[in-house]
């Protein structure tokens, strides 16, 4: 598969009609793995990195799970293509900055990705829409075991899988869920949640990971520690914390509807008006408006059939996707025009809000 075919084909995240989950948008697990006899990517010479890449990419691409996917060195992608992959949560920003010797393997439906020579030799990632840790863990566990048949992993019985950074030692696993928490944001409870989650050994980040903002009320919540507990224990613990947050969000929604329904209806209704009629929308504003529409769907204001569209627009209104759709490089100001145009077209087709039978 070629990169442009991949970008234009349906992906796990942009084809989310199967997602029935009101709060959890996506589940993701990544594993950090390294080869035993080679220096980590940050310390390896360019020639060594290329050798490692060849060995890893050959082994990964041979897996039946990755068949008919894309396998490509990072340096042969242009900036826009890399940005699109970042916006789809397939690769990290760190990998984009890699000058030489890094690679990417993505499977056909874009649910499994392996980054080669990012911080570690291998970063294996599996993602699925909705709240599906069991399924995602089963998939990635098999993928990892299959890969290990062909690659000699660096492993210590005491410290587990050895990683470039000691924060990833042990399981090398980061499990995360992307959550849509508009009611907790509106009712100013997010700070409290972030603090509580931190005390439970989990981390809250914005939509695009470390350092990104939380536009669209979307947060990524993941485990902080990787050593000392088994993968199943970490996932179970995280699952428990996430379930509590889902409950908190649903409670906050109920409370908003009970105490001041007009305030929330106003926000949801205005979002529709702006998306249908705006001419300049930056990505932050677009995300926040789409977030309100998604909340409206959860509350029964808009039809549930629109959910797939909104989840897709969350990704397609990002700067890289906007430029790709318009087939060129555009300045932020021009992108805002293009984004608003796309959203006007989509929302012209969407039936108006109906506040008569809101549910929670």
């Amino acid at each position, binding site marked *: 598969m070629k990169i442009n075919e991949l970008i234009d084909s349906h992906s796990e995240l942009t084809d989310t009609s199967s997602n029935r989950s009101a709060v959890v948008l996506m589940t993701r697990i990544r594993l950090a793995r*390294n080869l*035993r*006899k*080679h*220096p*980590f990517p*940050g*310390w390896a010479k360019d020639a060594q990195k290329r050798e490692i890449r060849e*060995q890893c990419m*050959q*082994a990964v691409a*041979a897996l039946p799970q990755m068949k008919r996917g894309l396998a490509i060195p990072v340096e042969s992608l242009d900036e826009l293509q890399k940005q699109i992959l970042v916006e789809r949560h397939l690769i990290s920003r760190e990998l984009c900055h890699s000058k030489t010797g890094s690679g990417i393997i993505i499977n056909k439906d874009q649910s499994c990705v392996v980054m080669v020579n990012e*911080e570690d030799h291998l970063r294996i990632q599996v993602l699925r829409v909705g709240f599906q840790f069991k399924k995602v863990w089963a998939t990635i*566990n098999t993928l*990892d*075991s299959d890969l*290990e*048949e*062909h*690659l*000699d*992993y*660096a*492993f*210590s*019985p*005491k*410290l*587990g*899988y*050895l990683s*470039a*950074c*000691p*924060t990833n*030692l*042990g*399981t090398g*696993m980061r499990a995360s869920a992307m959550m849509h928490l508009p009611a907790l944001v509106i009712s100013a409870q997010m700070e409290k949640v972030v603090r509580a989650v931190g005390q439970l*050994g989990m981390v809250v980040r914005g939509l695009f990971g470390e350092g990104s903002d939380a536009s669209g009320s979307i947060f990524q919540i993941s485990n902080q*520690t*990787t*050593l*000392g*507990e*088994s*993968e199943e*224990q*970490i996932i179970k613990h995280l699952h428990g914390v996430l379930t509590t947050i889902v409950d908190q969000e649903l409670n906050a929604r109920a409370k908003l509807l009970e105490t001041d329904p007009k305030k929330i209806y106003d926000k949801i209704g205005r979002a529709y008006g702006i998306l249908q009629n705006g001419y300049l929308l930056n990505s932050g504003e677009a995300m926040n408006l789409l977030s309100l529409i998604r909340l409206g769907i959860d509350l029964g204001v808009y039809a549930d059939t629109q959910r797939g569209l909104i989840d897709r627009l969350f990704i397609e209104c990002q700067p890289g996707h906007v430029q790709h759709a318009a087939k060129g490089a555009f300045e932020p100001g021009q992108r805002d025009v293009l984004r608003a145009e796309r959203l006007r077209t989509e929302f012209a087709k969407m039936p108006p809000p109906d506040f008569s039978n809101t549910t929670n």
Partner: protein
Amino acid sequence: MANPLKCDLCVQPATVHLTQIVNNKIHKVDLCEACAQAKGVTDPSGFSLADLLLKSSLNPEPTGDIRCESCGFTQQDFKKTGRFGCPSCYNFFGSFLEPMLDTMHNGIAHTGKIPQRAQERKTIDERLNQLETDLNLAIKAERYEDAARFRDELSQARQTAGPKPL
């Protein structure tokens, strides 16, 4: 005690012995008077053993220059990047890593997945080697019945071993 304890940070005899519980784990340090003064151990209000452990281990002066013999990565490099050079670094930096792991993680020992197939592969390889040796010995000794049996076992074992690594 036959030999008086030496200070953890220099070579003077230790006269200050401190025990502190951090994250439910007991940590002990033994310091000479000068180092204890310098590290502020005598000022109970502003002292944390965890800080001391972390700082003393991250500080290259007292422990000298740990260097990974496999890739040449030094403690200074770690201080700069926060990452190690190669998997073998963990063999050389163990002593200063452990206190860090304790604050970083939920324990200091791995209890999760073990690369199962690597272990199986090792066992199978060992068995294949054994059978090959047995077969050669039997042929040399002209024990042909035994040799035939070893040959069959070997081909069966090779089949179950599956594809070799790339």
